[in-house]
């Protein structure tokens, strides 16, 4: 029985003049876990919003037999409110006509917590939670809302491997409780491990729906990106050269050498963010450090400025004489970067109208142009489609060959393992462990360290 059936819908956004969906169809059976995959900008999120009913389509038919609840890519939780308040928004139990019955809400949520085996202190403010816990709050919220169909937009992107594993288990248990689940993800594991079927989208169109069991993992990734996935092969035989840069983190000195990639990882609130802030500070005073921020939407680019303005932001003085900007020089330069790094956009377009992948390309293009010796890359592939991510990996690889040193800060343990010469794992604001021999590094080991377990 189809719980969701979508026939030939289209959606056009006048704000940025995009045809987000055209003639899209999708059918979802009750009780299944259905993944939706495709590149960035394929229209997946828009489709989910339409299913959830927060966006209306221009044409086509939609039939949904149940209540939907959606957990979107960027959390909608309100930092200054506590967990309980966040969960009950929209479904507040009421006494005496208009007063929120917090006691009742407390009981109801606790019931859910017990039922699914979660544990959370409902009076904690959201800002004090780790990313994984926030995710959990979002999930509880949709369960609390009595939703039959749960929609997840890239739920594991921000999670550590251990948390992602936990999350997948949660989805399976939700499935057991007869919930229907739709999930958007770029992570192959999300699809291969839990989904029953997955649908591939490209450029707003339906491509095909595949039963997960019928294909193997490499097929899935090919299906997802449309191109063959190339696993980055970092040449670990290149020996690190002379010292480039060092800094002290919590009494421990970390030194970066030529042709070396140092990975730093950990879970949610392990201190990675604070470390990033410190490193950003260092990059400001040192021309030889290039910095790619994790929060690219606010720190990496300026959404309301023209793309060319974003591209020259780090070094406007290079394009000026006596303080006067030479716009012709800036235009030529920007055009060069756009072609060289294949950024889909014009130099005069508003930066905010670019897709996520193209935004990250712009950031990296700008940093690469500086030609620094040291690179600080923070979650460089977060929320980016496989093809773009692969390009970034290739770029890192070639940097290493050019004797550059790279600090890779990432919550993605696999990424860190794939790329690094050595890995530092943070836990509660300090380095809990260092892996020097990359042959023993596994996501599981890093996960263990990240949770504070070191003695085994």
């Amino acid at each position, binding site marked *: 029985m189809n719980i969701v059936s979508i026939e030939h819908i289209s959606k056009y956004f006048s704000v940025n003049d995009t045809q987000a969906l055209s003639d899209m169809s999708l059918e979802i059976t009750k009780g299944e876990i259905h993944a939706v995959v495709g590149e960035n900008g394929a229209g997946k999120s828009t489709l989910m919003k339409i299913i959830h009913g927060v966006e209306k389509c221009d044409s086509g038919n939609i039939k949904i037999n149940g209540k939907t609840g959606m957990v979107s890519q960027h959390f909608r939780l309100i930092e200054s409110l506590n967990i309980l308040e966040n969960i009950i928004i929209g479904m507040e139990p009421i006494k005496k006509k208009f007063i929120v019955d917090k006691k009742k809400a407390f009981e109801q949520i606790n019931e859910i917590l017990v039922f699914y085996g979660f544990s959370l202190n409902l009076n904690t403010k959201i800002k004090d939670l780790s990313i994984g816990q926030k995710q959990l709050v979002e999930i509880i919220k949709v369960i609390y809302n009595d939703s039959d169909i749960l929609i997840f937009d890239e739920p594991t992107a921000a999670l550590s491997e251990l948390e992602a594993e936990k999350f997948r288990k949660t989805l399976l248990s939700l499935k057991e409780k007869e919930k229907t689940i739709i999930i958007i993800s770029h992570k192959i594991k999300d699809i291969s491990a839990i989904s029953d079927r997955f649908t591939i989208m490209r450029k707003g169109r339906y491509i095909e729906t595949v039963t997960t069991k019928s294909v193997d993992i490499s097929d899935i990734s090919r299906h997802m990106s449309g191109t063959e996935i190339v696993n980055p092969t970092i040449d670990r035989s290149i020996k690190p050269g002379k010292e480039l840069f060092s800094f002290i983190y919590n009494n421990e000195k970390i030194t970066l050498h030529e042709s070396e990639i140092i990975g730093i990882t950990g879970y949610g609130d392990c201190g990675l963010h604070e470390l990033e802030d410190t490193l950003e500070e260092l990059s400001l005073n040192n021309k030889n450090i290039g910095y790619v921020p994790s929060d690219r939407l606010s720190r990496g680019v300026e959404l309301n*400025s023209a793309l060319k303005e974003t591209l020259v932001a780090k070094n406007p003085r290079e394009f000026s004489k006596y*303080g006067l*900007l030479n716009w012709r020089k800036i235009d030529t330069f920007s055009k060069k970067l756009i072609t060289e790094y294949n950024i889909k956009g014009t130099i005069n*377009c*508003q930066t905010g109208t670019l897709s996520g992948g193209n935004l990250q390309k712009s950031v990296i293009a700008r940093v690469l142009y500086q030609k620094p010796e040291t690179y600080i890359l923070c979650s460089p592939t977060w929320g980016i489609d496989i093809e773009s991510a692969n390009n970034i990996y290739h770029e890192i690889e070639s940097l290493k060959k050019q004797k550059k040193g790279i600090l890779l800060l990432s919550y993605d343990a696999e990424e860190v393992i794939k790329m690094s010469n050595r890995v530092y794992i943070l836990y509660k604001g300090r380095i809990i462990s260092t892996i020097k021999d990359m042959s023993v590094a596994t996501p599981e080991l890093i996960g263990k360290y990240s949770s504070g377990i070191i003695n085994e």
Partner: protein
Amino acid sequence: MNNILKKPALLIVILTIVPTVILVFILSKDPIYSLYVFFTGPFSNKFNFGNMLNRTSPLILTSLGAFIALKSNSFNLGGEGQVYLGATVTGLILTNTAFIPSSLSLLLTIVIVLLTTGFVTFVSSILEEKYNVNSLISTYLISMILIYICDYFVTNLFLLENSNILTTKPIPEIFELKSLLPPSSLSSGFIIAVTIVIMFSFLLKNTVWGYEFTISGRNNAFSKSMGINNKKYKILGLTISGALHGLAGYILVTGSYHSVISGFYMNLGWNGLSSALVAGSRPIMILISSLFFSYLDSGASSATVLSDVTIELSTIIKSVIFFVISSKLIKDSLIKKGNKT
């Protein structure tokens, strides 16, 4: 409804013209003539045209001032006090420096006006940086205090004797800005104002300083990450804003009134802020929005002189137009798109 919403220009025409015409038809005995006078009055002769441009000069400066503050993420609600301060300082210096060469005292005046009014808003921005006092509040409160203090100077200490206008002594004639289009009151202050907007437009667009100022105002996190000193630009923005308001006061005294008249600043600050908000993101648009504002004002003035339209009607018309052009729908239609290659 949705179709109309997609065509902002049409919507504006409908929402402004219709109520205007209705109002005129209700409140005027000869509505066609009233409307005609309202819209063509400012262009009907040299005198009216010159007055319209002269009305624009201080407005250009106050709206540029408000604009610069907005661009640096501050709100300057104290425009009126700053204009008054600039005017008072101008008046007091120019009426009391007969003993030094005129060119020197003119230069001195401009410098002191810029410094004092700039200092006032500088204090507000320091209060914001150091004590977390929102500049929106402090500029307003300080402006109210300034108005009373200036009033004390103008209507007590330096009041023109034997006059029944609450005004200071007129400034010596050599200090008056050159009249451009007699008998209208248009003075070379207009040229100063326009030059300054063009200058700022150029500075903001074509210099590293302007670039960093703009970026810093648009996005703090980004500019910080790019190594731009946000604090400096924020303080500078509000300071310049105050100085420009002071300059507006200077132009009003030397170009239009030739003395400091109590209460002359009425609405200058608010109109400046409005015109800046309407101008949106590009400084050069300030010229157009200020001209548009004074065109409406002058039209209203002509209408009150030549037809039976009252000041109130023109205020209502202005407010309607104002309301509608603030719509974001229009701005959205002007954004350059990335995927149109």
